[in-house]
């Protein structure tokens, strides 16, 4: 499976993912698209734009799970005990 680039737009204030664009495995445009999107949101401190590459969005949900609401601090607190 080729490496795909995903452009994520995330609202950190509401902790919601606004968009996850699969830019495919043609990587030449991905870096420019990333910078252009960041420029669009420059000045908006709530919005995070990030370019992450992996085999699938499913992997990114595991490696960068907080963008997808996949991480539950309460569950951690409840289960990490001595």
């Amino acid at each position, binding site marked *: 499976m080729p*490496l795909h680039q995903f452009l994520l737009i995330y609202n*950190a204030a509401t*902790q919601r993912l606004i968009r996850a664009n699969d830019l495919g495995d043609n*990587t030449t*445009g*991905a*870096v*420019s698209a*990333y*910078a*252009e999107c*960041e*420029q669009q949101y*420059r000045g908006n*401190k709530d919005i*995070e*734009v*990030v*370019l*992450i*590459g*992996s*085999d*699938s969005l499913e*992997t*990114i949900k*595991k*490696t*960068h*799970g*907080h963008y997808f609401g996949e*991480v*539950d*601090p*309460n569950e*951690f*607190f*409840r289960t*990490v*005990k*001595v």
Partner: protein
Amino acid sequence: MPSGPSELSPLPSKETVNRAGRRLAEWLYDSTVVIPDEEIDTLALHVYAWRAQHYGPLGLVMPMLRDWSDRYSTSNIKPSQRLKRFSQIIDKLHRHPDMKLARMQDVGGARAVLANRDEVERLHAKIRDTWGIHRTKDWRDDGRPDTGYRALHLMVAKRDQLSGEDRVVEIQLRTATEHRWSQVIMAAGERLGYSLKDGNGPDDLLEYFRLASDVLAAGDTDEPVGDELAERFIASRKKVRHYFPEKETT
């Protein structure tokens, strides 16, 4: 009208890159610093151009990292890569006034999550023997003093075709347990409005995460949790309970 990032990617010198990063950090965090919009655009494009020079090197690292991960990892999590966000770059320069952007070593980053420390060590050896390691940050045993973050970070230098020079990229190797902790401190920080992962937030909460990291590390190394650590963790956990309110169930 400034050119788009794709058009203005020629190669700024390291001095230009350093100056651009520093000026943007001053501008963003000091309201007395006023810079015209056109100049901000130009400075930002230098930063984008510098960041773009880490994309090719990441592309050289990832195929082998993915291949080795398939061979050595039983975590069921494939590697990923990311280019550091613009705002994170500028924020880091603000937090480290002596840091130069051209020397920032995590502009391009790859992450592999492995099941345990043996697998981390196997991948570490493979990377060391194949590429050589430019610099190592090993927080596996003691954790980072400010937060308790644990992982092995390996900086490797790879050739960037845009500049014809080597650029350093960072490979993060984490056990699944270290990764879980790391994801949680980030999510908890976001929920509560603190940058806990950078060591900013209430002392009691930071202490809790440091001790939780110590407790989890004991599990990762098959060591028993010592009495003193256990007592401190239990006391700390009581103090921070209110940060983790349970939803009422009906």
